[in-house]
């Protein structure tokens, strides 16, 4: 009762303070800055821009208020009165609860103030739940963390300027890249990789909520610790601590909270805990078929727990084994094997924790040599994690509205086996989700009459499929003589129809067909275009399919001709891959170190430039393509390790891999398009070059024959030295 009375009067006192009103007023204005000055969300979906924007400016204001109020009692010399009737730590604690309550009230007010504007901007895609969660999960806890930390720093130092300085250092720590671009180091500016308008926001909200718990525990622990430092009996810091620890519940609370924060940090399930190394070549040199085990069939059964974000799976491999030898499977480090049996009998296995490569964890075991077909069953379960080398990529998600299982997130696979060419899949999903497996929208599910449906399919290729599930819609249309199936989130239906997306796709396809030749699909095959969550980012293309992040289809992109032009780049780029890559001309050899610049990307990027030049004019194309390529190449040419590769070889392997990966990207996306542009000019201009490309397309498309860099030079009747830029690009 006394505690409540204390809290009540502190609350009233704060409510009457002008500092509180200044902090509250500026906090409410915070989102105005967030619309332009600071963008936490990396993609421009509507919710990312209008909901994930940083009302976090308030965190600093509340920290300042917290420090001022902590200092005020001493500045006003009121402490001589209050200390005589109450322990200063009790008063500090009640003051902190009062500040946090006011802060909650202001966050509610901020949410209400911006609600009409946000609803208006986001339009029919607006979701009140997401809006509320953004304030409850992202904003409010962050303000609280800031308040607790600032108060703790003040109480430890008892000097407002020193506390302010230390707080600024903590803020710098959160914004700097010094500790890596890591979800968990961003205490004041939580990373919201992206929000999604049409799919699910479970991933960013889950991660943010988790990091908020971590930092609330740590900041709460620091605050409890600082209560020990409250100066009393006119003693200094150490003397006060010596007296303070006698209230044993304070150090116990502080230790418990800090321990909880550390436990949550170290035990987080979102990013794997293995080594950070990324081995770019790993996927291409895995020990394929190294064991004597041959798999004749594989069947998977996946049952996602959409509320917990976990996957329960079971895979059955029918195998034979000729000879001795160790076998292995790999899967996402978030999954653990519950059981491994051969013909019903448990077999020993060992999971190699800490030896993950690219976020895949191996489990080794030895299958018995058998000539008759046996079956190996692996049951696994867990929360899929991101690879530590790409901690900010959210390719895997299991939630009520969206499921994305890619690569190792699907389940165990083994390249040590001699694999089978097909596998069967059984997916048990909530009724509202429709799966797309390897870019095929599944049909005819079996209703389980318990809110779930079972979907079955067979894939006819080696390896694991990409499994997506959402409330998908599909429309089919014809473009440049090709049947196109556009699969997208149901929520985007209005945008897709209102803004004529199918016509925009047809425009790109018509351009490429006209300038570079017709797509070489087998008769009756469709081009599948798949919209994915904004978490995915960018685009991707393959054999008869193209996929984009949803941000390309947002209202602002589709309705703004200027912005649309830049968003069209990815949109068009991925469609053009059907001409250069995918089912079109495949430009190899990917791993050739000298011609690392030569890939599908060069001609795709060049063609995108040509398309934009035609749509928006020469100046636009020069500024947004040629200048950008040149700047990236110039930057690379100036790079120390690029000019001195002998020093590159002395770096640790993971840094070499990282630098090589960056160089490869510049070479593919910028250097090679510049070289192709040079070739275009050398052969006599665009019209002549288009003729050459058409000829190449006729000769190579859909043949499976690799189109090499030398083939390209031959087709243009040019020599290597003709098109090379000023400096050698080898790295």
């Amino acid at each position, binding site marked *: 009762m006394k505690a409540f009375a204390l809290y009540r009067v502190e609350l009233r006192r704060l409510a009457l303070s*002008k500092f509180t009103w200044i902090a509250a007023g500026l906090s409410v204005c915070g989102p105005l800055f967030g619309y332009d000055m600071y963008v936490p969300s990396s993609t421009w979906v509507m919710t990312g821009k209008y909901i994930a924007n940083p009302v976090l400016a308030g965190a600093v204001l509340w920290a300042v208020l917290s420090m001022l109020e902590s200092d005020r009692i001493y500045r006003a010399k009121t402490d001589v*009165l209050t200390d005589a009737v109450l322990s200063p730590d009790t008063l500090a604690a009640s003051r902190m609860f009062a500040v946090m309550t006011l802060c909650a009230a202001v966050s509610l007010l901020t949410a209400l103030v911006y609600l009409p504007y946000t609803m208006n901007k986001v339009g029919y895609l607006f979701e009140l739940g997401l809006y509320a969660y953004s304030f409850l999960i992202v904003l409010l806890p962050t303000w609280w963390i800031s308040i607790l930390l600032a108060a703790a720093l003040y109480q430890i130092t008892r000097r407002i300027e020193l506390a302010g300085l230390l707080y600024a250092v903590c803020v710098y720590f959160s914004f700097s890249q010094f500790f890596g671009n890591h979800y968990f180091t961003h205490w004041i500016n939580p990373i919201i990789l992206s929000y999604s308008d049409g799919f699910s926001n479970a991933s960013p909200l889950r991660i943010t909520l988790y990091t908020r718990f971590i930092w609330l525990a740590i900041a709460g622990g620091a605050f409890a610790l600082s209560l020990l430092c409250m100066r009393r009996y006119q003693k200094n810091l150490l003397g006060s601590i010596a007296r303070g620890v006698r209230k044993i519940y304070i150090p116990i609370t502080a230790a418990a909270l800090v321990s909880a924060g550390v436990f949550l940090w170290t035990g987080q399930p979102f990013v794997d805990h293995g080594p950070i190394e990324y081995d770019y070549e790993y996927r291409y040199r895995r020990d394929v078929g190294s064991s004597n085990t041959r798999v004749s069939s594989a069947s998977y059964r996946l049952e996602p727990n959409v509320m917990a974000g976990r996957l329960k799976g079971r895979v059955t491999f029918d195998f034979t084994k000729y000879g001795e030898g160790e076998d292995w499977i790999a899967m996402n480090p978030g999954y653990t094997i519950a059981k491994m049996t051969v013909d019903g009998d448990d077999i020993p296995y060992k999971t190699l924790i800490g030896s993950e490569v690219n976020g895949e964890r191996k489990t080794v075991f030895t299958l018995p040599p058998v000539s008759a077909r046996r079956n190996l069953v692996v049951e696994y379960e867990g929360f899929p994690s991101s690879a530590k080398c790409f901690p900010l990529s959210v390719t895997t998600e299991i939630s009520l509205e969206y499921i994305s299982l890619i690569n190792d997130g699907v389940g165990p696979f083994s390249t040590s086996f001699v694999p089978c060419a097909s596998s069967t899949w059984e997916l048990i999903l909530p009724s509202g989700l429709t799966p797309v497996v390897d870019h095929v929208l599944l049909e005819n599910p079996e209703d389980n009459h318990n809110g779930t449906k079972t979907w079955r399919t067979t894939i006819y290729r080696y390896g694991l499929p990409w499994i997506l599930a959402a409330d998908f819609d599909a429309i089919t249309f014809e473009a440049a003589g090709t049947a196109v199936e556009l699969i997208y989130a149901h929520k985007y239906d209005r945008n897709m129809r209102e803004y004529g997306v199918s016509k925009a796709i047809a425009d790109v396809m018509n351009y490429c067909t006209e300038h570079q030749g017709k797509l070489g699909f087998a008769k009756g095959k469709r081009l599948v275009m798949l919209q994915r969550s904004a978490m995915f980012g960018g685009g991707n293309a393959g054999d008869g399919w193209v996929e984009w992040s949803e941000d390309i289809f947002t209202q602002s992109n589709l309705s703004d001709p200027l912005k649309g032009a830049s968003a069209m780049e990815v949109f068009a780029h991925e469609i053009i891959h059907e001409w250069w890559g995918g089912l079109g001309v495949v430009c190899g050899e990917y791993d050739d170190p000298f011609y690392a610049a030569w890939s599908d990307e060069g001609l795709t990027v060049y063609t995108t430039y040509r398309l934009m030049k035609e749509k928006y004019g020469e100046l636009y194309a020069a500024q947004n393509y040629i200048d950008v390529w040149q700047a990236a190449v110039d930057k690379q040419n100036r790079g120390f390790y690029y000019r001195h590769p002998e020093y590159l070889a002395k770096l640790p392997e993971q840094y070499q891999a990282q630098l090589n990966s960056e160089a490869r990207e510049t070479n593919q996306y910028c250097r090679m398009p510049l070289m192709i542009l040079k070739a275009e000019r050398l052969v006599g201009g665009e019209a002549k070059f288009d003729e050459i490309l058409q000829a190449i397309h006729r000769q190579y498309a859909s043949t499976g024959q690799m189109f090499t860099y030398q083939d390209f030079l031959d087709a243009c009747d040019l020599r290597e030295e003709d098109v090379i830029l000023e400096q050698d690009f080898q790295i």
Partner: protein
Amino acid sequence: MKIEANQLTMIYPSGKKALQNISVRMESPNLIGILGPNGAGKTTLMKLLIAGLIPTKGDILLDGKALLPQENRLKSQLGYLPQSFGLYDELSVWQFLDYMAALKGLKGKKAIDDALAVANLAEHRKVRIGALSGGLRQRVGIAQALLGNPQLLILDEPTVGLDPEERVKFRNIFSEMARDKLLLLSTHIVEDVQSICNRVLIVHDGHILFDGEPAELIARTEGHVGVYVSQIGDPTPEGCQVVSKVNTARGIQCRVVAECLPGFAKAAEPTLEDAYLHRIGKGADAL
């Protein structure tokens, strides 16, 4: 309520010896005046008694038990007015007293209304503290100390800044309260002590020079107070401390205290002020 201080020594980190080996015992009901020059150790003694400081040596007992472990109990029964204090200017008088009442764990409005009435602040209850005069702020300070009718009142210079009428009024209030409470009053105004205190402590240079009834102190000064008339330019007789000088038609009538009065001085009836000055003049050596 009973407070005992045994052989208390307080040395600040700066090395200043504020109190040296003092012992004192206080029991309710009592109104004890603490007199002493600036820097004598009065405020330090009060801070020790409210558990605002920990003595370097010695101990303080509250009802026979060590004070610090009973800090919460002490604070629940304490009304304290420090010599120098601040208030929250944005709050009204009533809101501030409500704030302090909550800190003291008092429920209801009665305690606040009573304190307002005693401190004669009822008509100012809605006025913002920032708008109050110095005297009214002092009355707010007194009112917060009186909140909840505490059993132990420690008041450091409570009547500073009050007009004479208010000073007399508060003096009488303190006197009435002391009928069933322990009240410690530190002041420079000897008249206040003489009027209401039944016991006086004289603190000087960290020592207690006198602990007893004012009458006893006065009695000890009998024969050490005298008056004489001097002219302008006359030196003060050796060993005399002038208490007052009054211009008269015959010259300057001087009132002095001295261990040994000069022959031309006529003995006078000592007051508490004379006695205080006499005792201070003798210093700690006379203990």
